[in-house]
């Protein structure tokens, strides 16, 4: 019976039902805030539970899309309401539904003004994220992809830090500029193929010259999202100014939209152009990995440092994707999921101490281990996962990417590995300065112990990071078939490419 349910539509739009509910509740400010928090938490938690249905029902051996839904939307214009998941998108859907309740929990006390509006923004954001990952129609994908900007702009701009206006504008306009260039390409593809149905577009052969332009248009959008050097500069600003939960979602899910886009559009639809531009992507990624790691070393703001480390980690993702072999792409996927969990946790780590001391300056901290020993354990675990310690999910992703990169180009692997060393350097150094040594001030000494709520966020994240670290096949199995399909496509066009040479 459950097979006939439009399960993806339900998951996508369930948060909106919560929004409607939030719009009608009334009461004085305190009651309203309390109710808004509870409604948002329960709605998003329930959405997560329902999304487990996909996980349970997902057949990792099947090729093609599952839980597919297709309805008439715009008559016979080739544009329809079309949803479905495969091994590439399914993990992202779960990542989104998993992180949203945690993010809402993370803002339980730190957000005190306009709580209802804040929760509405988060639930709308969740709908847009899920919708984007499950869309199998390019116009629908674009709608969700760009609509994400609206709630995120408000979250940064209304509830952000002192330079929030600058950061929100930069985030919005940067991303929009990339997106509209993609829009022109979407239009050109629609004109060429007569449909926006993604599976049909994948089998459509675009002319080679056209592929080049289309690739560049999509690249403009996805490279900003990932973000790749040199269009990454919006990210540190956005992260520093966004509230903790905003950073968690931004790093946890929104950055993955770029990588997902490369796997969903660029590789399968423009295989020729992807091969052609792969060296360029490699160069940009290597610069990102090394340069932003060095920049991270120089930061005095914890959040900014973690933001730069995100750019470096996402550099691994793009290397993996464009090495175009099984290990590379699987590694990139793994790295994205792992980074989604670890970076969300790291931003929350910053949030925990920021809530107590109201500063993110590294120099204001020291000796936190003595005051908050349990927090120190979680922070250390996540820090090591970010560095890529074996046994954590971070290791698997980076390892696979390096193997993939080695096959594509040994120099590439060498440079990428340099980034790993630098990554370990700045993270360990950050940890030493913040956590070890003497307790630097009375304020640090008087920091409260962790609350139950904070354990509630750390524990699930820790479990998952550990689980994927020791049993990576759980994730790799799911993606395997879909990755194979992308690679088969690429091989066909690769043979053609060689013939053309």
């Amino acid at each position, binding site marked *: 019976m459950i097979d006939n349910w439009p399960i993806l539509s339900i998951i996508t739009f369930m948060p909106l039902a919560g929004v409607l509910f939030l719009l009608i509740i009334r009461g004085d400010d305190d009651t309203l805030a309390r109710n808004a928090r509870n409604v948002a938490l329960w709605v998003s938690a329930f959405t997560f539970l329902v999304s487990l249905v996909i996980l349970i029902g997902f057949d990792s051996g099947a090729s093609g899309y599952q839980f597919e839904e297709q309805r*008439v*939307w*715009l*008559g016979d*214009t080739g544009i329809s309401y079309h949803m479905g998941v495969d091994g590439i998108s399914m993990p992202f859907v779960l990542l989104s539904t998993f992180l949203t309740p945690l993010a809402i929990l993370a803002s339980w006390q730190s957000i005190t003004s306009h709580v209802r*509006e804040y929760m509405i923004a988060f639930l709308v954001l969740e709908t847009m994220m899920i919708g984007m990952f499950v869309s199998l129609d390019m*116009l629908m994908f*674009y*709608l*969700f992809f*760009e*609509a994400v*900007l*609206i709630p995120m*702009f*408000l979250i940064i*701009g*209304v509830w952000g830090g002192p330079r*929030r*206006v600058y950061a*929100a*504008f930069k985030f*919005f*306009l940067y991303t*929009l*500029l990339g997106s*509209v*260039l993609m*829009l*022109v390409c979407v*239009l*050109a593809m*629609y*004109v060429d193929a007569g449909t926006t149905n993604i599976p049909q577009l994948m089998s459509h052969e675009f002319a080679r010259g056209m592929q080049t332009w289309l690739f560049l248009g999509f690249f403009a959008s996805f490279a900003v999202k990932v973000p790749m050097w040199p269009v990454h500069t919006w990210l540190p600003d956005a992260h520093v100014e966004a509230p903790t939960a905003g950073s968690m979602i931004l790093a946890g899910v929104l950055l993955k939209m770029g990588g997902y886009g490369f796997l969903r559009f660029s590789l399968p639809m423009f295989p020729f152009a992807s091969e052609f531009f792969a060296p360029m992507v490699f160069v940009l990624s290597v610069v990102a990995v090394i340069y932003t790691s060095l920049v991270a070393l120089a930061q005095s703001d914890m959040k900014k440092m973690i933001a730069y480390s995100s750019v470096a980690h996402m550099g691994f993702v793009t290397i993996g994707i464009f090495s175009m072999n099984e290990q590379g792409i699987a590694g990139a996927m793994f790295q994205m999921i792992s980074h989604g969990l670890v970076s969300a946790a790291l931003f929350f780590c910053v949030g925990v101490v920021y809530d107590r001391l109201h500063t993110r300056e590294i120099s204001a901290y020291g000796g936190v281990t003595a005051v908050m020993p349990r927090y120190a354990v979680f922070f250390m675990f996540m820090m090591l996962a970010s560095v890529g310690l074996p046994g954590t999910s971070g290791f698997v992703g980076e390892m696979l990417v390096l193997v993939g990169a080695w096959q594509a180009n040994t120099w590439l692997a060498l440079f990428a590995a340099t980034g790993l060393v630098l990554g370990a350097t700045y993270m360990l150094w950050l940890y030493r300065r913040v956590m070890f040594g003497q307790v630097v001030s009375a304020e640090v000494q008087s920091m409260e112990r962790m609350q139950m709520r904070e354990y509630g966020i750390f524990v699930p994240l820790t479990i998952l990071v550990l689980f994927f670290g020791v049993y990576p096949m759980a994730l790799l199995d799911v993606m395997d078939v879909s990755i194979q399909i992308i690679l088969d496509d690429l091989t066909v066009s690769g043979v053609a490419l060689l013939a053309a040479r």
Partner: protein
Amino acid sequence: MGFELAEILPALPEIILSVVALVLVLVAAYGGDGAANARRVAHLTLAGIVLAALALLSMSSEQSTAFGGMFRGDAFADYMKLLVLMGSFAAVFMSVTPLEHDDINKPEFSLLVLLALVGMMLMISANDLMSLYMAVELQSLPLYVVAAMRTNSLRSSEAGLKYFLLGALSSGMLLYGASLVYGFAGTTSFAGIAAAVAETDLPAGFIIGMVFMITGIAFKVSAAPFHMWTPDVYEGSPSPVTALFAIAPKVAAIALMLRLTYGAFGSIALEWSQVIMALSVASMVVGALGAIMQSDIKRMMAYSSIAHMGYALAGLAAGTHEGAFGVMIYMTSYVFMGAGTFAIILLMRRDGQSTTRITDLRGLSKTQPLFALGLMVMMFSMAGIPPLAGFFGKWYVFLAAVNAGLVPLAVIGVVMSVVGAFYYLRIIKIMYFEDSEAPLDQDVPLANKLVLGVSMAVILLFFAGLNSVIDAANTATIALMAPF
């Protein structure tokens, strides 16, 4: 020559509006002075508009002509007239209270709007150079007067005078172009011109005449570089008048542009599409860059409307079925965005005085959260952010442009839309990210609430009803392109 009722029946909505206007002249003259009479005339005007809309909807939308072929009724005319009627209804509906506040509540206002409305409807149905010119003048003259309605204000008088002078210039160009076209085609009817165009080599004089005509209408559309009057007139006119200017006449002028280009000059799309393309690019650039520096919201909306006309013309520049179709979808979203935005601009009063500085919106999200939300939706829609209505307008005009091979035009358009997003976001920033000094007046007329509510619902749910809009616009486009 016998009189046949069927001969004028297609113009029934226009006839209804004219009769109502004539009756209202008497009501205005003998109904006594003061606010009560002005209110009465306004309400009767609204009733007249509703009546005309009902007549429009109840008539068949098959192709028909009236007044000896001067007037053309078809699905295209019905579609655009409905938009114009909705826009004018919203403007008059929202004008009643503010005009009373500003003590310029003369019954003449609604009356003149009604006459201008007849002109706009006739523009949409124009099928002959004579009726085209007459309709344009009938639309323009009352609007010159209402722009100068606030007789004790220098700026309002200035706006009226400027509008009149430049309007007269554009009429002169239109007339000169029409005379050249007539001279070379030997007829004033669009059908005759289309036939003449199709069969002979075009003399240069004909092309010059065509360009002059397009220029004349470009003035009315306020496409750059013929946009100079727009910011001053928007700013100087009383706000309810600006609300009117911003919506209905633009739709009518774009419709006239479509009629002329697709109807009379349909077979030489290559010749005029370059002109339109230049107008489109100039408008998108001028509109986007000009709005950035504005501190007055009405001036900003003027530049914004210039940019919007640029986008609409980008569809027209394609010169294809898809192009006209895209323009229609764009104008549909434009009417609702404009009505919703002006519903809030008209609310901007402090201590009873209307204010138009953008900074007056500071902290609106705290004092009047629902209106702030409404304006935010309008701004995001104007910036073309999906899934709001404005995005679909842009989607279809740029689809037409890309389809016609005008990719550079589409790229310029989308890049300019990012520049445009900056000043729309600025409004949102001021409402949401900044705190207010002194809140705006809290009493809100029902009219604004209704107009805003309806506009918001349409903008937010546009994607859901898009299929029926597409069907209607498609039928209208086929009617537009049908031979005579």
